């Protein structure tokens, strides 16, 4: 079942088009990561999907509610962690959370229970009655995360949840996101932390105005750059360069490079062709000591995609 369904979304701000032709789907209980550089349109996308700003074109449905006519219902059933914590400094952490809990319709006992529960989850029970104006950045972020979850939303938008946090605080936030996924919540996670996206997301969309690529982390790693197979050799009667010449003639091999004691081979279908390749090498007298698959990192794919886009934009500017 799809919880977030986006079709051709676009948002223009006077002369600037922040997002265009954006389409993606998020199933129930999945974490969808929007990866992109600053200014890629991640925050604009979240604001549109949270019913805060209207798209200039396109449609979207959040848990069956169409964006626009059902914005109030969408705001009631979604939780949002904004780019900046946006807390009320003169209020305590507890008062901040209670205020938002009331705005989301919680009252009395359930409100107190929710506030206490989430203060505990984000590790701020001890500091609950201190004004947030004196909190560290990490503590403020944790209050903001608790605020986004207080009313138990089905859909959660997280805009840079670990930005600027120390490693320990970032780890605890990531653990919380993972536990939310296990609870079956649908999460749209905007980040430019590639490691975080890879660890947490079921699907990733690389955004720079529109989606440049989309898929699971494993699918994206295979995007663009070919996967290579590295064969480590340990001496033997045959020189690697000679082996390379033999291997190059095989029908399923697309490219080969040889090192002092290894070969790097590009295969048409790595999973299917690697056993045949190794068999052939052994028949040729090679002593194979290790075989490994070199998959491009998400970072390489991301930089390739975003870099290509930047290059095209630059060419466009020059051409203009």
């Amino acid at each position, binding site marked *: 079942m799809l919880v977030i369904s986006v079709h051709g979304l676009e948002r223009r*701000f006077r002369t600037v088009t922040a997002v265009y032709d954006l389409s993606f789907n998020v199933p129930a209980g999945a974490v969808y990561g929007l990866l992109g550089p600053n200014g890629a349109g991640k925050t604009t996308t979240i*604001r549109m999907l*949270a019913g*805060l*700003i*209207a798209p200039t074109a396109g449609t979207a449905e959040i848990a069956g509610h169409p964006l626009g006519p059902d914005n*109030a219902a969408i*705001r*009631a059933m*979604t939780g*949002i962690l*904004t*780019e*900046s*914590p*946006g*807390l*009320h*400094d*003169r*209020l305590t952490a507890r*008062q901040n959370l209670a*205020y*938002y809990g*009331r*705005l*989301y*319709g919680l009252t009395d006992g359930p409100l107190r229970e929710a506030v206490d529960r989430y203060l505990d989850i984000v590790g701020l029970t001890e500091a609950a009655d201190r004004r947030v104006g004196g909190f560290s950045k990490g503590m403020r972020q944790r209050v*903001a995360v608790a*605020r986004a979850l207080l009313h138990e939303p089905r859909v959660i938008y997280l805009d840079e949840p670990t930005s600027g946090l120390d490693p320990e605080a970032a780890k605890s936030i990531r653990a919380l996101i993972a536990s939310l996924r296990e609870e079956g919540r649908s999460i749209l996670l905007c980040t430019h932390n590639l490691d975080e996206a890879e660890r947490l997301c079921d699907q990733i969309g690389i955004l720079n105005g529109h989606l440049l690529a989309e898929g699971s982390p494993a699918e994206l790693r295979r995007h663009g750059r070919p996967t290579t197979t590295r064969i480590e050799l340990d001496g033997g009667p045959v020189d690697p360069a000679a082996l390379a010449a033999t291997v190059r003639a095989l029908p399923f091999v697309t490219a080969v490079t040889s090192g002092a004691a290894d070969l790097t081979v590009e295969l048409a279908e790595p999973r299917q062709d690697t056993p045949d390749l190794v068999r052939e090498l052994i028949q040729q007298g090679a002593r194979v000591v290790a075989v490994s698959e070199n998959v491009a990192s998400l970072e390489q794919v991301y930089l390739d995609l975003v870099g290509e886009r930047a290059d095209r934009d630059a060419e466009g500017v020059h051409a203009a």
Partner: protein
Amino acid sequence: MRPDLVWIVFGKEWREIASNRLLLGAVAAPAIIFAAIPTAIVAFIQVNDIDMAQLGQIELMLAAFPDLPVKLAAQGFIVTNFMAYFLLIPAMVPIAIASQSVIGERQARSLEPQLATPIEVSELLAGKTIAAALPAILATWVVWVGYGLINAAIADPRLLRMVFSPQWIVAMASLVPLICVLSVLLGVIVSSRVGDPRTAQQFGAFVVLPIIAIAVAQFLGGQATFTMQQVLTADLITIGLIGGLLVIGSWAFNREEILTRLG
């Protein structure tokens, strides 16, 4: 408009205002000063003999109180004439609170998470408006009552009738809240365009200066206090101005504008 949500915003704003001693001082100080000056004059007249030769122009104004002895008439004139300055409290205080609130929220970027809840912008603004207006209304009313009682105690109980006259009861019940709303709206609109609360407060002059001009004209014209007709006319003019500012405010303070310009 859902009153419960307005009440929630009001409660939060009130908490923040109550925790800001500087702001509370800014509310109390003008109210006390505007009451203290005429009270000091009344006390001075009470303990000193009036020299008719020194009354000058005021002598003419005492005609407003033909039934009273000269000394009490002079005190009555001072007491009622200075009351026009009480209208400065609802003009000055709410704009200070409203601009502090809106610009403070802009700087803290706390408008976006609030707008992401089911609340409507009008409910958020209504809560803020009531929270900004209420301290000024309460301060004006408290000072007005205290002013009447203290001056009556210092001079003569007959001053009570002048301070709590029907036109001032109507002015306190209608004009003071209306001026507060006008001041808050001006504060909100200006705060949506400038980044510094002090700059926003400068725009309070648009409300403050006409009131000062009316008070001075009243004194120079020899009129001791407002007539009922003047109070009701002022009510209507203020309602008209509020209507105009609401139109501007609804354009300047919609959800998109707040997020894309102010957020």
